């Protein structure tokens, strides 16, 4: 049966119930309510931590509140990456926490220039998206040569060039050991234990205190058996790779990821409650004769699918912008907290120091639209007003179709915002996608309407060409 939702009462009964307010909440019940939605941390309850009589309860609460998908840290220092730590299967059930980490591979058969180039690409990768810097997270070093020394040399070169977390990829324990001698103190992910090498890999994971990936392509019984065995062996931080089949077998991949995550989140199967690894890089193995662009294309969309299918870590090969950009953005989108409001406050915003002849632009209060438009206006360095209409948090296109952005609504915000006292002119620049409303807005507001660009990236040019308007 699916896991039952945790009730605040279950949690409350294990708390001190003294309403001491040390946690910052009014009482223990309010704290319990925040604990079950993971908006508060158990450690905020000082008595629970310090008073020996609560020790048993603390352990019980910790078990009750721990995520069904264990959080595992790869790497050390500021750039260490947390994977897993998820509480729910579907994002609407709460939210996802640790965005899918994306690693790019280098291999020990690459020239040192090639390795340096790829590491540098990952280090410098950044895309600024509504005010956030989207980045890549790790380097996966693959042992292709089969030579422990050559592998270790490559690991040394990579480690010397970057402080990013490392994933050491070789199924040969001898190669792995040589690499760990170099980078074992950086808490790399050991990839991977299989049904053949698990004992040696487990020993290495214990010796170097590193997380260990378990790889069992399309064989979940063996994957689960390996997890059981490795836990008994004393290895606690595991990641699971059920195999990524980007061509034939895509249905197996899809279903394996679904089953693993369901068993973890809904059935509380502790053997499977670990972060999942997807390897879109396998797209390069489907048909070696394919042109490179086709391999990159396949890798791009398989990565996208895995992000929505619960993958916590992806290992990729392509370093093409068009392959990675949609995936870092998709990851950002899917891992956005769905509890956060979709909308910003309607009203009037100012940019720079607008005066009575500065332009007045209009947008919707859909958060994404607002932040995109705001970023574009800021980039233009123009002084202006931005009127944010209440469209119930919908984007402009849907607004017009769904009748959320209406002439009446705009008339309301013009009145209530007091913009008429701030500017002398009566010209409103509306989004290009709302062009159809021009006449209606003019009738309802008495303002003249200018139709702005279809995309807000065109605002700087539009203002340069059209403001101030010819007639007033």
């Amino acid at each position, binding site marked *: 049966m699916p896991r039952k939702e945790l009730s605040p009462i279950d949690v409350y009964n294990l708390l001190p119930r003294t309403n001491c307010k040390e946690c910052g909440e009014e009482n223990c019940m309010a704290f319990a309510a925040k604990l079950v939605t993971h908006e508060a941390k158990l450690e905020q309850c000082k008595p629970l*931590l310090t008073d*020996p009589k609560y020790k048993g309860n603390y352990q019980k609460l910790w078990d009750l509140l721990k995520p069904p998908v264990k959080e595992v840290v790869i790497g050390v220092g500021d750039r260490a990456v947390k994977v897993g730590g998820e509480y729910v299967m*579907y*994002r609407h059930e709460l939210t996802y926490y640790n965005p899918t980490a994306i690693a790019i591979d280098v291999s020990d*058969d690459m020239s040192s220039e090639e390795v340096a180039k790829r590491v540098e690409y990952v280090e410098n990768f950044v895309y600024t998206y509504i005010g956030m810097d989207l980045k890549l997270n790790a380097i996966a070093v*693959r042992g292709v040569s*089969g030579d422990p020394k050559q592998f270790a040399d490559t690991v040394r070169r990579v480690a010397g060039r970057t402080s990013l977390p490392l994933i050491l*990829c*070789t*199924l040969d324990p001898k190669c792995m050991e040589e690499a760990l001698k170099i980078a074992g103190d950086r808490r790399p992910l050991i990839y991977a234990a299989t049904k053949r090498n698990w004992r040696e890999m*487990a020993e290495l994971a214990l010796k170097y*205190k590193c997380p260990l990936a378990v790889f069992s*392509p*399309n064989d*979940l019984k*063996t*994957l689960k058996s390996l997890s059981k065995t490795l836990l*008994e*062996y*004393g290895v*606690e931080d595991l990641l699971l790779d059920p*195999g990524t*089949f980007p061509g*034939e*077998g*895509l*249905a197996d991949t*899809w*279903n394996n990821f*679904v*089953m693993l995550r369901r*068993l973890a989140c*809904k*059935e509380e199967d502790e053997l499977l409650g670990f972060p999942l690894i997807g*390897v879109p890089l396998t797209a390069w*193995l489907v048909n070696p004769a394919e042109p490179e662009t086709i391999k990159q294309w396949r890798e791009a*969309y398989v990565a*996208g*699918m895995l992000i*929505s*299918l619960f993958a916590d870590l992806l290992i990729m090969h392509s370093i093409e*912008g*068009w392959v990675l*950009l*949609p995936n870092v*953005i*998709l990851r950002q*989108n*899917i891992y956005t907290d*769905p509890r956060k409001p979709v909308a910003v406050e309607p009203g009037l915003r100012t940019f720079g120091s607008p005066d009575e002849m500065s332009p007045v632009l209009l947008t919707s209060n859909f958060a*994404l639209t607002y932040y995109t438009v705001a970023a574009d206006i800021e980039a233009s360095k123009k002084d202006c007003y931005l009127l944010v209409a209440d469209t119930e948090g*919908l*984007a402009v*296109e*849907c607004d*017009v*179709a*769904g009748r959320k952005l209406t002439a009446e609504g705009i008339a309301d915000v013009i009145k209530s915002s007091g913009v008429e006292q701030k500017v002398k002119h009566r010209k409103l620049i509306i989004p290009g996608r709302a062009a*159809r409303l021009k006449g209606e807005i003019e009738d309802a507001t008495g303002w003249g309407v200018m139709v702005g660009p279809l995309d807000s*990236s065109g605002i700087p040019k539009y203002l340069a060409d059209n403001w101030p308007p010819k007639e007033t």
Partner: protein
Amino acid sequence: MSEEKLSVNIGSKLVRYLEQYGEIELEDVAIRLEHLELQVLPGAPPKAVIAAPPAKPKPTKLIEVEFKPPVYEYVLPIQEVTIGATRADGGTRAYSLTIGGEKAPPFYLFESKPPHKPIIACDVFDWKVPLAKAVKQHVREVYGDPVAWAKLAVEKFGAEAITLHLVSVDPLIKDTPPKEAAKTVEDVLQAVDVPMIVGGCGDPKKDTEVFEKVAEVAEGERIVINSITKEMLEYDTKRNVDTIVKHNHVTIAFTPMDMNLARELNRRLTSEGVPRSSIIMDTTTAALGYGIEYAFTIMQRSRLAGLMGDEELAFPISSGTTNAWAAREAWMKQLDAVWGPRELRGPIWETITALTLLIAGVDLFMMMHPAAMKTVKDVIDELMQGMGRAKPELIENWASAKL
């Protein structure tokens, strides 16, 4: 013992507690030593050297455990909807297509295989709408000519259905009269024999009038009216319901990103007499990077709710996937230098938008770029082949594969 170095492996769970508290109380542990040395690592919490109970022996061979797929029961299958009618059914289409009928979440094949595959309809416009360069280069010769465009979509892009968007009926564009728009529909129906979806302009009044005429001329063809909205029903419930019911067509019930509004509209349509088998729902598609998470979650929640017994949401889902091109990352030229040619960025944007929503539960995709349509179709075909096709030997050595 006193001369030996005491080395005990303390479990990392203990270490974690130590990190949290900085100290730990040992109960029922007797330590008899002459000299106890505690090592304190710089920057790390103090770690006590303790006598642990004898460690469990490490396993020497794989401990075999059972794996049981977590199969759940669902109470309500998704409604089946058939679009397009062949001669046998009073139309002239070469085939009809059925969507819906799922008894489990999308492609949860370990639970049940969907009886029908999701389908892809290719967008065709009756007007020279602004198009991204990456799309335009594929339709340049038919741009503005819906009949030629539809033929290209079917013959060259392999579209299994088409969506004719009657953009020109928009009072703010050309205000094409309903009769003339209906003529375009007739022409396209004659030019191609695949099931057809007809889109309007978004103006509730004009769309009501246009669809009324379109439904008449397409009598018998079981076309899909894209779409009927709450506003259209408010404008004229009877005419809009007649458009579907009298001529035995299908409607897409469109709502702007809100599960409750979707429920309300579906309920209203069924209570006004529109058969369940004539309703597909569109809960709005936002582009990757432009709110796809809302679209994804509303679709995923709706599908799960439908399967769990919410009749008002147990309908096939349609997606205007072409909205993917609203994201500037899909088309903007200035991004070429760093983020690759927009000829690839655009179609991969549409592809990933579609596949993300396939995971959420979409049954009908309306798409535009031929490469995106082909990829999504290939993925769906592969998924429909079912499980058991994975070849572990192909990928088991990926870590050491020479690329």
